[in-house]
């Protein structure tokens, strides 16, 4: 009898291959895609109410995108060879192609859009600041110091075009992460054509919730009033996206249950035992039903401002927990059962190993450090705008 194993596992299956860090990877890329899609609401779909979060969403996306490859690098047996994915990619591999999707999104979409959005500010800051910061801002201008109305108009037009390209790119970024899992036919827990679309909508949900939380926290820290029109609008979009996400996940569940193919008994048993807490309690009840109820209540009734703020913070925090649990259930859950459908293994998170809990916590704190630096370097709000709110 092998410790932690119930029933029969193929001997090489006992040890899990993808650990907590691989849970972080779709979680982080999801936040990127979701934050960018929220930013595009203002830019492309002219939802003016969310204007105060536009730049914040872009910086959030960048902070998380810069960290996204790190969990993968730490996980690799030979991270020094990872560049081979760019130099000699295997074209039939979903993972190899993801490297290019990532690079495209980082350089062509996000960095370009942020630069165009901030260019006039960067030029102004390059002229007004002193010492080392002046050098930094001058470097960030990339030599483009022209801030004439004509030049700014061109910035705006190109920025708009980049955002338009950026929306399908953001869809591609996270839909593709879903495809990496969904295309593994050997694993029935992953193998569903719904996986990319479920990943995409859950990404939007987590990204929108993260930006709303960061916006409210930033306002609180700066002791500025929260623009409730903005918060209400974001909460409304969060609700709509969440309804679609939950519907898709339930569709997957109902479909699996009704079809009851050869893997069903095994997966059903896993959900009722090893995944009960993370799937049913955390993901579905705490992370989906309660935030959905809170957000729905706000669509049906009008609450006082203070109450709405508490409800939004609660709903967004629970949403983040729920989406993290969803990533956990996909990545870890997909490895807890045997491909023989005859047994189950156990996953215990290490504490101080390369793929352990401390590394994961450090990786989750890093985007916030980057975000803090970015906000200091490229302030996402103008004082006048905040006071207007």
């Amino acid at each position: 009898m092998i410790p932690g194993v119930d029933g029969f596992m193929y001997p090489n299956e006992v040890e899990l291959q993808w650990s907590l860090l691989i849970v972080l990877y779709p979680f982080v890329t999801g936040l990127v895609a979701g934050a960018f899609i929220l930013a595009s609401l203002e830019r492309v779909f002219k939802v003016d109410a969310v204007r105060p979060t536009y730049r914040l969403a872009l910086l959030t996306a960048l902070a998380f995108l810069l960290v996204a490859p790190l969990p993968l690098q730490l996980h690799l047996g030979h991270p020094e060879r990872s560049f081979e994915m760019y130099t000699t990619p295997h074209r039939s591999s979903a993972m190899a192609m993801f490297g290019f999707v990532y690079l495209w999104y980082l350089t062509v979409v996000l960095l370009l859009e942020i630069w165009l959005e901030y260019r006039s500010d960067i030029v102004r800051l390059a002229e007004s600041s002193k010492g080392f910061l002046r050098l930094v801002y001058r470097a960030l201008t990339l030599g483009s110091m022209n801030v004439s109305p004509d030049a700014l108009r061109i910035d705006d037009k190109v920025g708009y075009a980049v955002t338009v390209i950026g929306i399908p790119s953001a869809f591609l970024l996270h839909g593709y992460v879903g495809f990496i899992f969904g295309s593994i036919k050997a694993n029935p827990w992953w193998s569903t054509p719904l996986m990319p679309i479920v990943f995409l909508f859950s990404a939007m949900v987590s990204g929108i919730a993260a930006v709303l939380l960061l916006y409210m926290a930033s306002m609180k820290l700066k002791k500025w009033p929260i623009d409730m029109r903005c918060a209400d609008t974001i909460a409304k979009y969060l609700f709509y996206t969440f309804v679609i996400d939950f519907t898709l996940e339930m569709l997957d569940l109902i479909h699996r249950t009704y079809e009851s193919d050869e893997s069903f008994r095994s997966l059903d048993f896993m959900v009722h035992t090893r995944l009960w807490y993370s799937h049913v309690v955390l993901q579905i009840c705490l992370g989906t039903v309660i935030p959905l109820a809170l957000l729905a209540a706000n669509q049906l009734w009008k609450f006082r401002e203070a109450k709405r703020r508490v409800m939004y913070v609660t709903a967004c925090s629970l949403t983040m927990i729920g989406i993290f649990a969803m990533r956990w259930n996909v990545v870890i859950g997909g490895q807890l059962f045997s491909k023989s459908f005859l047994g189950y293994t156990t996953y215990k998170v290490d504490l101080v190993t390369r793929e352990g809990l401390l590394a994961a916590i450090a990786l989750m704190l890093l985007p916030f450090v980057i975000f803090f630096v970015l906000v200091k370097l490229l302030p996402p709000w103008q004082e006048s705008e905040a006071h207007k709110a």
Partner: protein
Amino acid sequence: MEITRRDILSVGGKLLMIASVGATFEQITGAKPPPDSYRMASHWWGMIIDIDKCIGCGNCVHACSNENQVPKDYFRTWVERYEVPEGYVNPRVSSPQGAIDGFPPSKQTSLKSFFVPKLCNQCADSPCVQVCPVGATFVSPDGVVLVDQDYCLGCRYCVQACPYGCRYLHPETETVDKCTLCYHRITQGLTTACCENCPTGARQLVDFKNPNDPVHEFLRNNKVAVLKPNMATGAKVYYKNLDGSVR
């Protein structure tokens, strides 16, 4: 100085001896044969397994482990014991330490019990090859799925993609490892370590491209199946009398 016939014979004989020692030395040191002695395009390797002949002794697992220095608790090949009680939907399956030391006597009064040796199925349409991000795992021209240890990233996507659980991350090299069908042996005209050490001939290395290979008669005369045919991997390990309960 005059060179006599005797001198010529003496020097010639010595040269001949040195040349022959040289040739033997090459063989002893295991130097690679000339590249044209083994033609990859002339072979298409696979294996046939006769379930009824397997006695679950674990010799194959032992031989494989020794031959390929397989790390402890990982397996390039293993043997499963199936016990299928009457009216019981799921069979009881066990493989203690991959059956490297065989099996303890069964306490079950089963309807039927049999052993199933497992190894990489050397799939022609291999999912592991498809997903490798750098092409470190590949199908050789003679039909063996191999891993380039100097190229593998250790991402383990292939481990997830293999439906048969045949791959693992080598704890020392941190690259993926698996059955190579003893490639270092079969290209020298030998059979695999597992086949050589099977006391009942339950496992047999076969070459589908060799018209005289017994595999053709085996496939003609027996009811055979591959594991998980629904995965459509083009598996080249054929089992005779494979029970429907085997996963």
